[in-house]
């Protein structure tokens, strides 16, 4: 593929912790090489310089939670040739989507003395609820190697090689002893999207699904087995309702245990 200009990269932020865009700055070994291949045209966390759109690739961090942001994402979509949400907030609504299961006005009054100033939506929603997205990187936070793979694939004009199978596959390749079968831990690895490198089981704890659902998650079967191991319904609700709780498969599963 030949180009007569360096592709323009933009990084956008919505409701989030900044961790996923920090992953780009955490590419210490690759950062200067990346910046030689793309023009970092809009990345407020890193630079004062702003180059106007259109942008060849927009990475979007964070979820939509305010009326203003609901409008802003449409502008960004119009300016962007490719748009890729990164992280659990952008792909599933994030931890702040726990409000979606409650009355948000009660949340506001818990935190703020004068709730009337707070402009917030009832729900925290992923980017794909609002605009068309070209690809998604899951994870809370995303894995920086997957981010580098995404950028490389973009530069080479190919599809990113990001496996959508479960954490169990990664865990088995690492040769870990199963923390659930052998250790009785609650582990969401079987229903969770790969990408972290099965870190939690490698550190002797169950996966808490910060990467969200894998491509075909059999959540009800997992719940059944967790129940057989003595997990109560309210524990299952909390387990599925965390950083990716609003992702459809997990939402349906947690709600099924509330009936």
């Amino acid at each position: 593929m030949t180009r007569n200009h360096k592709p323009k990269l933009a990084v956008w932020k919505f409701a989030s912790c900044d961790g996923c865009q920090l992953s780009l700055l955490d590419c210490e070994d690759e950062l200067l090489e990346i910046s030689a291949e793309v023009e970092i045209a809009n990345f407020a966390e890193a630079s004062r310089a702003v180059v106007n759109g259109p942008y060849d690739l927009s990475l979007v961090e964070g979820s939509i939670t305010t009326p203003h942001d609901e409008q802003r994402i449409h502008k960004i979509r119009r300016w962007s040739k490719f748009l890729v949400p990164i992280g659990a907030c952008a792909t599933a609504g994030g931890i702040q989507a726990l409000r979606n299961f409650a009355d948000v006005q009660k949340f506001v009054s818990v935190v703020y003395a004068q709730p009337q100033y707070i402009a917030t939506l009832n729900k925290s929603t992923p980017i794909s609820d609002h605009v068309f997205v070209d690809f998604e990187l899951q994870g809370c936070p995303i894995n920086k190697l997957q981010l580098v793979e995404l950028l490389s694939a973009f530069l080479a004009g190919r599809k990113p090689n990001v496996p959508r199978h479960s954490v169990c596959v990664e865990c088995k390749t690492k040769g870990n002893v199963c923390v659930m079968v052998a250790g009785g831990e609650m582990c969401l690895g079987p229903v969770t999207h790969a990408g972290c490198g099965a870190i939690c089981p490698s550190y002797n704890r169950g996966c808490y699904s910060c990467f969200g659902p894998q491509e075909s998650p059999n959540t009800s079967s997992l719940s059944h087995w967790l129940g057989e191991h003595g997990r109560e319904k309210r524990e299952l609700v909390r387990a599925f309702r965390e950083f990716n709780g609003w992702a459809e498969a997990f939402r349906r599963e947690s709600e099924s245990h509330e009936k």
Partner: protein
Amino acid sequence: MKNKSIRVNYLARVEGEGAMYVKIKDDQVKDVKFKIFEPPRFFEAFLKGRDFREAPDITARICGICPIAYELGASYAMEDICGVKVEGPLRALRRLIYNGEWIESHVLHAFMLHAPDFLGYEDAIRMARKYPAVVKDALRMKKVGNDIMSLLGGREIHPINLRVGGFYKVPRRRDLHALLDDVKWGREAAIIGAKFIADFPFPEFEQDYEYVGLRHPDEYAVIEGRLVSSKGMDIPIGEYDRHLVETQVPHSTALHTHVKQGQTCQVGPLARVNLNYQQLTPIAQETAQEVGLDPQCRNPFKSILARIIEVVFAFDEACRIIESYEEPDQVAVKVQAQAGTGYGCTEAPRGICYHRYTIDDAGIITDAKIVSPTAVNQATIEKDLQAFVQGHIDLPDDQLQYHCEQAVRNYDPCISCSAHFLKLKVDRE
């Protein structure tokens, strides 16, 4: 007579979404606003009803840059409730991972976000064309900090290996020792970096601050201590709410923190160096002297020097902890839930980070309060802007704006952190 306003609608090189507004009328500063329009995320609200052991993982998500501050603050608060103390090698490992966080966060801010201000670049990538070795060494230092986080925590952002009571898995001695060469290199690189920063042109500007931070009898306080100030406050962290109050100010809707008497306070590296200079390691103190960082420094633009001195300290202490590490018998102290209220306060890279929780007998959280360092510094940032602009009112607009942005970045504001409960009225034009 001059009437003008300076408006920066989206502050760059800070973590999160912030803006700044200064209004000048008849050569007098009439209005200053350091705005935070980061959407609120309601952590305190949705923590209610969660299990107490989930608090470290959940609160980590307040900030991707300083997750350890939240994971450990929450852990200490829960241990306080349940009457548990984490001592010995487990405590040392907690300090070590915190050293890693200070290194990655401080180096990111000092070299990638703040140094470009002093040298006149838009960002560190452009700065790297003129100073390739400085930027490459900074990236490598940051990486060593992240390597410490990854080894002990499983990954650098939102580490998974910390829990109430300790860890899930502790490193073998040989795994830690594998880091030693890099950590020693980092200590030297930080000293060289401090000398590089010492030559920056620092604007002449001093303010009378009340510095607030932790103090511990035996060490440069990071994870535990009493809350002290340069103006005589000395209290256990459990009395935080009685001495540091949050108020809503009329010109904005942000919660500002004040010491009881109405004085604003400053937290962070400059506060810590002022309060606990004598407890810095000898190498860190020597470097501070060499680069001219006065222990009584009141120039906020020199916070970058305090930050790099703390990087020297963090590398030095990491060396000591690694060299003296003995593998503990157990990975965590057993914690049994009991009803009560507890407190945790640690020194995040940007200053004290306060947690208070109440749990019931089943270990379910019934109340939570978290105060981030940027929230505490917010009122001080506005006062700095006010005084700085008043003293430099004749500068051309673009230069004044540039210095104002720099004055905000002195505090390394982490807006994502503060906005879990802060909100200013959005005014983007």
